[in-house]
């Protein structure tokens, strides 16, 4: 998704400084485009759900894009991630294609899992995605095991385990972090703290200092503004490269916010959070706005860059949805396939 073709159109050769600024612009615009694609993807999911074209549940990632995009930008394609029920953003940021994602969400045959996984279970081994997981905290062991595998094989790969603040309530996470620390495994635990465990504020569910938990295991721990993709990326690069050098696991606590409800059907939210709070985050702390404002302040971009990116992202989403809507459902005989390898 990196926007290679937005380049300076100057005729004389670029100076070193200009070349660096061009590269910088391309890099950040690439991340912007990824975040926008995720945002538009989720808006489309919401529409599909509301118009009854999509079965089941969908947990939208809107508002949290900077976390997935910032972290995955620090990873190689062959690095692994494990994802969550709110995982569309992780999948896309790690390199999944929009059309096959939509196809999976609609239970169609060309979907990433042939329609057998759906929104909460998309896996794509080709982009290193070991799968979204509908058990809160359920992939902490898998991610840590994958990290042990990387270390055993000497592959130089690292693993990122995405989870939300709700997973801080799961014992498995602490069992896994303990072993990761003991064995110095190349895994980064990325907590997306969006303030709510489903429909309950985490101040009611999570005692003490959240960051003290990973620190108790001697795990390198950092906290970052999860709405600022530049901050997320910088922290992720530090922790990923550290893990790749064999210096052990890390924990990255990203403070973020879920713009929609726990899932698409969670519309009346007044009993657990206020409209004012939601409006504040959307107006003041939107990761897309924060990055675009910074790019404008730096004089790195012109408006045409944003226009071009938006046009391209919308076209991608539109084509992806069309592909998925027109795609066939799996053959009924597939129901008994893939129970056993």
């Amino acid at each position, binding site marked *: 998704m990196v926007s290679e073709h937005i380049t300076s159109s100057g005729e004389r050769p670029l100076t070193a400084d200009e070349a660096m600024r061009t590269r910088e612009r391309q890099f950040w615009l690439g991340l912007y485009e990824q975040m926008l694609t995720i945002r538009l993807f989720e808006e489309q999911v919401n529409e599909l759900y509301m118009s009854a074209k999509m079965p089941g549940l969908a947990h939208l990632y809107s508002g949290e894009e900077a976390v997935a995009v910032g972290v995955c930008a620090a990873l190689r394609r062959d690095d*692994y991630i494990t994802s969550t029920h709110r995982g569309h953003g992780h999948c896309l940021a790690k390199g999944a294609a929009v059309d096959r994602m939509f196809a999976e969400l609609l239970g169609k045959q060309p*979907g*990433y*899992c*042939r*329609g*057998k*996984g759906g929104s909460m*279970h998309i*896996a*794509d*081994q080709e982009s290193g995605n*070991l*799968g979204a*997981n509908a*058990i809160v905290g*359920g*992939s*902490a*062991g*898998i*991610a*840590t*095991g*994958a*990290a*042990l*595998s*990387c270390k*055993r*094989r000497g592959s130089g790969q690292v693993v990122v385990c995405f989870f939300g603040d709700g997973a801080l309530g799961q*014992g*498995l996470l602490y*069992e*896994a972090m*303990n*072993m990761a620390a*003991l064995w110095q495994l190349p895994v980064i635990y990325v907590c997306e703290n969006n303030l709510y465990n489903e429909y309950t504020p985490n101040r009611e569910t999570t005692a003490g200092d959240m960051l003290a938990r990973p620190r108790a295991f001697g795990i390198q721990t950092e906290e970052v503004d999860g709405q600022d993709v530049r901050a997320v990326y910088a922290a992720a690069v530090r922790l990923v490269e550290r893990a790749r050098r064999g210096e052990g696991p890390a924990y990255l606590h990203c403070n973020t916010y879920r713009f929609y409800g726990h899932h698409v059907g969670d519309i009346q939210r007044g009993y657990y959070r206020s409209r004012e709070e939601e409006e504040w985050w959307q107006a003041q702390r939107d990761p897309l706005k924060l990055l675009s404002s910074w790019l404008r302040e730096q004089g790195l971009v012109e408006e045409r860059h944003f226009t071009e990116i938006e046009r391209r992202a919308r076209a991608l989403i539109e084509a992806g949805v069309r592909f998925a809507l027109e795609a066939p459902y799996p053959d009924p005989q597939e129901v008994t*396939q*893939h*129970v*056993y*390898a």
Partner: protein
Amino acid sequence: MSMPSVSSAASAPQAPEGGREITLGQAIREALAEEMRRDPRVLLLGEDVAEAGTPFKVLSGLVEEFGPERVIDTPISEAGFTGIGVGLAMTGMRPVVDIMFGDFLTLAMDQIVNQAAKVHYMSGGKLKVPLVVRTTLGATRRSAAQHSQSLHAWFSHVPGLKVVLPSTPYDAKGLLKTAIRDDNPVLFFEDKMMYQLKGLVPEGEYTIPFGVADIKRRGSDLTIVATSSMVQVALAAAADLEQLGISAEVIDPRTTSPLDKQTLIESARKTSRVIVVDEGYQSYGVTAEIAAVINEGAFYYLDAPVKRLGALDVPVPFSPVLEDLTVPTPAAVVEMAKILCGRA
């Protein structure tokens, strides 16, 4: 009542000439060592698996040969290290996870049932989990309610898992090697009271396929289907029944998932009377499933309803006097057989 047929204890895949007599524990260790030598991706992890070799000493010597990178002592975190096993298996390794007592499987249920069993299916066949979970079952060790259960029925109920129940050293070795080479999550239950059981095991390489029942003893009047250590109970009962002129066939499914339905049904059609013996709780258990399979496959051939003998539906009590009442015995099988054969 027909005369007892010639009842040889031997059946097709028994140990060939040249086998040595070793214990079931030694057979397990040999299987692990051979597979670890053959395939560097195989590694062991669990509580006290390295220097301690587990409380049952089944793994003694492995860490000395393969080192602590491949024989990994874990914290007491069954969910955590089982999950790590799943992650290892999904990314190119072939882990064998050790759950010391089968009762502790409850702590790892999510990792086994929601993760390992479903990854292949949920991913549309792209990801695989070649994981072996070795664990124990069986009562009468005076270990009370949390160290004595036989919970293999739970896992036999879950699509995506395979469940293995060896009853002899020969079977244990061949089945464990197959389990390690299988691309699916396999639950491998060893009866902790059988680790010292001796039997002939060949020197050479062999494996035993899953889903192939073994006829441990041929007979004509009655079929006793038995699993794990209950095979020994069934064989003892069959010997007693022979004295009474009742010829009992003893069939060991060896794996409950996959289940060799055909062999069970064929035997039931031949003998017309069936007892199913298993050490899991009787209600909603392995005996119920096997009885249903036989009823569906041999109904018109049966002279009597399929009878079942499972563990008593109580938490396993500590007092030896009470505990011994909870487990099927040869005497109980004989009594049931006599009733079925009109000899009571």
